[in-house]
């Protein structure tokens, strides 16, 4: 049968993405993931004051704004040798994780689920209920999600001024000095969110979900109580299995994460693994998790609209020199190809789960490989893992006498990097300061990892690999491909770099 080429621009992803598909016999044989817009933010950083990164880099993305702020502040901490006192660390962690919490639910419900209400699935037994819950601008869960996540974000406004786009994290801590009454408000808001999450999304308490360690446990959980079946999680598992989402979207099965945020020196929050971080980072491949050394990260531009003398660079040496998009037919994206030790890697809630050794997810990756259902499952249950820590840190902030900021001496020539788990996965900022000004600034976003084009060895990026082999029922509208891509929670606004100076 003949090959069909189809270009689909995707919406309901942050930013602009096109997928160029080659389809034969209703199966995707090849794909190019194309970031279609270049905003040039890395380049407009050069020559600016180093603290400007705190204002500009949150504007890389409207939904992960706090994560970018955190990465920029950490890079400055390192560059200046600034120490972050305990209460500042707690405040940073709370705001970072609140942003994750709202994004996890907003993505799942507002960006991913609408695809499952497409008319193509009208014949499915659970279709009517999917429509009732998730129809765009109308679904029951949709309406609740908008209200509840909006309330949750008030925590970031109380502690940091506003959401999105504030700059309350600075080297040496945070600028805020919240009063005990502010912190009490935050805890009330968090408790409210937790109640809704347990009642509506999860269908059980965090403790009950925390006992699940295998797919057998999930099956048993589903039938143990009607609240489990009928929660959005329970519904998603049942409907997702009906639609075959567990058999879609297998990729390289390599994962990368930089782990949970740094712990304050004194805390009752119990870390998993590495004692200095809430959750360990790592690189997972062939059923093994290894320590993740950021020196092994490079960005390959073989298929990206940038030019350089070498095919790949570590971000400290990175540069962004754009080409006119028509110059070279091998190149097809405004996204560079991040590689760890030369290998592509997937990042996001599933990567975090696997790398921190959560038994259910490790088991499923080993048995079935990462897939659409598993990625969304990880996203839906991640709040269960982090809600208690957020509340604990708020409580500690109120009791502790630690300052929120500590002064330091600025260095005029220095380097630093900041690695953060953003809502969509592993985010890194790399900063070089020379003579008191930014000489180089490189950002690798989580979606850069996931949306990566091919590299100089021709190895596809994670979601390119996941899309190949997808069976499509209607070539005019490759809905199945959309499921695969959206399961990565794509954000193209971050991922296409801005460049250039001089």
């Amino acid at each position, binding site marked *: 049968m003949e090959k069909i080429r189809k*270009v689909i621009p995707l*919406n*309901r992803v*942050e*930013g*602009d993405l096109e997928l160029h598909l080659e389809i034969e016999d209703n199966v995707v044989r090849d794909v190019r993931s194309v970031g*279609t*817009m270049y*905003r*040039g*933010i890395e*380049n407009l950083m050069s020559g600016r004051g180093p*603290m*400007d990164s*705190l204002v*500009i880099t949150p*504007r*890389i*993305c*409207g939904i992960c*704004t706090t994560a970018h702020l955190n990465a920029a502040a950490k890079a400055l901490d390192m560059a200046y040798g600034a120490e972050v006192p305990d209460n500042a660390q707690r405040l940073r962690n709370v705001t970072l994780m609140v942003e994750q919490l709202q994004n996890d639910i907003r993505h799942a419900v507002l960006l991913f689920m609408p695809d499952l*209400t*497409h008319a193509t699935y009208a014949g499915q037994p659970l279709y009517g209920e999917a429509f009732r819950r998730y129809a*765009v*601008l*109308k679904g029951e869960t949709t309406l609740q999600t908008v209200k509840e*996540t909006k309330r949750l*974000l*008030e925590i970031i*406004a*109380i*502690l*940091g*001024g*506003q*959401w*999105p*786009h*504030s*700059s*309350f994290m*600075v080297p*040496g801590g*945070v*600028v*805020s*000095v919240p009063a005990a009454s502010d912190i009490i408000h935050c805890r009330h808001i968090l408790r409210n969110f937790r109640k809704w999450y347990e009642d509506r999304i999860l269908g059980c308490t965090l403790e009950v979900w925390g006992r699940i360690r295998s797919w057998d446990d999930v099956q048993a959980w589903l039938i143990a109580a009607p609240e489990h079946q009928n929660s959005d999680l329970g519904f998603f598992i049942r409907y997702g299995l009906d639609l075959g989402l567990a058999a879609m979207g297998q990729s390289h099965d390599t994962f990368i994460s930089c782990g949970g945020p740094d712990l304050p020196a004194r805390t009752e929050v119990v870390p998993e693994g590495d004692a200095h971080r809430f959750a360990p980072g790592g690189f997972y491949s062939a059923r093994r998790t290894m320590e993740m050394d950021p020196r092994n990260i490079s960005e390959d531009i073989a298929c990206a609209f940038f030019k350089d003398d070498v095919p790949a660079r570590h971000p400290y040496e990175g540069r962004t020199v*754009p080409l*006119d*998009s028509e110059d070279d037919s091998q190149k097809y994206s*405004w996204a560079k190809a991040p590689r760890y030790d030369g290998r592509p890697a997937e990042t996001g809630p599933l990567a975090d789960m696997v790398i921190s050794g959560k038994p259910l997810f490790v088991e499923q990756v080993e048995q079935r490989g990462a897939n659409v259902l598993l990625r969304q499952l990880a996203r839906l249950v991640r709040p269960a893992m982090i809600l208690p820590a957020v509340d604990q840190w708020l409580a500690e902030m109120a009791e502790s006498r630690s*300052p*929120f900021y500590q*002064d330091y001496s600025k260095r005029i020539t220095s380097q630093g990097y900041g690695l953060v788990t953003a809502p969509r996965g592993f985010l890194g900022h790399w900063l070089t300061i020379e003579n008191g000004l930014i000489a180089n600034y490189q950002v690798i976003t989580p979606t850069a990892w996931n949306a990566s084009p091919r590299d100089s060895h021709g190895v596809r990026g994670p979601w390119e690999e996941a899309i190949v082999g997808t069976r499509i029922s209607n070539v*005019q*509208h490759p809905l199945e491909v959309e499921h695969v891509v959206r399961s990565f929670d794509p954000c193209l*606004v971050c991922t296409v770099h*801005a460049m*250039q*100076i001089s």
Partner: protein
Amino acid sequence: MAKTIYWIHGGSCGGDTWSLFNADTPDFIELFDFLGLDLLWHQSLSVRSTDELQALNDKILSGEQQLDILCLEGSVIHGPNGSGRFDMLPAGPKKDLIQALAHKAQFVLAVGTCASFGGIGADSDIMASGLQFTKWEMGGLLGQGFRTLSGYPVINLPGCPCHCEVVVGTLSAVAADMPLDLGHYNTPTNWYGVMVHQGCTRNEYHEYRVEEKKFGERGCLFFYMGCHGPLVTGPCNKVLWNRRSSKTRVGVPCFGCTRPDFPQQYPFFQTRNIEGIPIELPDGVSRAHYMAYKGMAAAAAPKRLIKRKTGI
């Protein structure tokens, strides 16, 4: 009859949409029902296939589908070299679609600073512009003389991001056929007729020139820490963010994000000054009088403020 609205992203971070999600009474979902607006397309939310979207665009451009309100969030990208190819749709540069749609719309709203003035990227090789301004200069994509079918210029709603109440309020006025009073840079005076400074809980410190030089304190940030509150307009301390707060209230200096030159070309977090007095003074203020006033204000400052003993 329901007014139609089409929401497109240019060179955008998506922040203006996520800011709109903070809206309360009506919230983002209720908004369209309350105002009787038919949302034809929103880049972040709509479920339409490519072909359906193309068909919609064709109908608007041919005149078959009425377009009442066009909202752009994000800048118009002209680079490289005016071709617009740094921001492509399958049919061609996105700026061409934006231009074509604008000429069919009854009202055009530039949501956010990037859409209004170019914002992030206005000084770089992506050649970002706003719809009718490039930073301080009128022109942008559509040209100084552009008027929509209703006779208005592009209505600029700057802010990085734009405050949700500004969008809700402006859409409410347009949906109800109420006139909008436009002031400087064609921004509605309802929200841009007040300085960011008005309503900041640190005002008492400001009044008595109790000024901070480092982070983590409670005093005013205007003299040394780069706060633009007294210099720029915006509803931040009148309407508040996320129902509760603002940057300046928690100690983050205002970055002047509603101004056409945002992001400024000189460093943030510091105030440029002459003889200890900021170079940029509030609009219309004479330097000599200001220096005298601030000198007396500092002398009159009560101990409780100097010692930062208030609960604010």
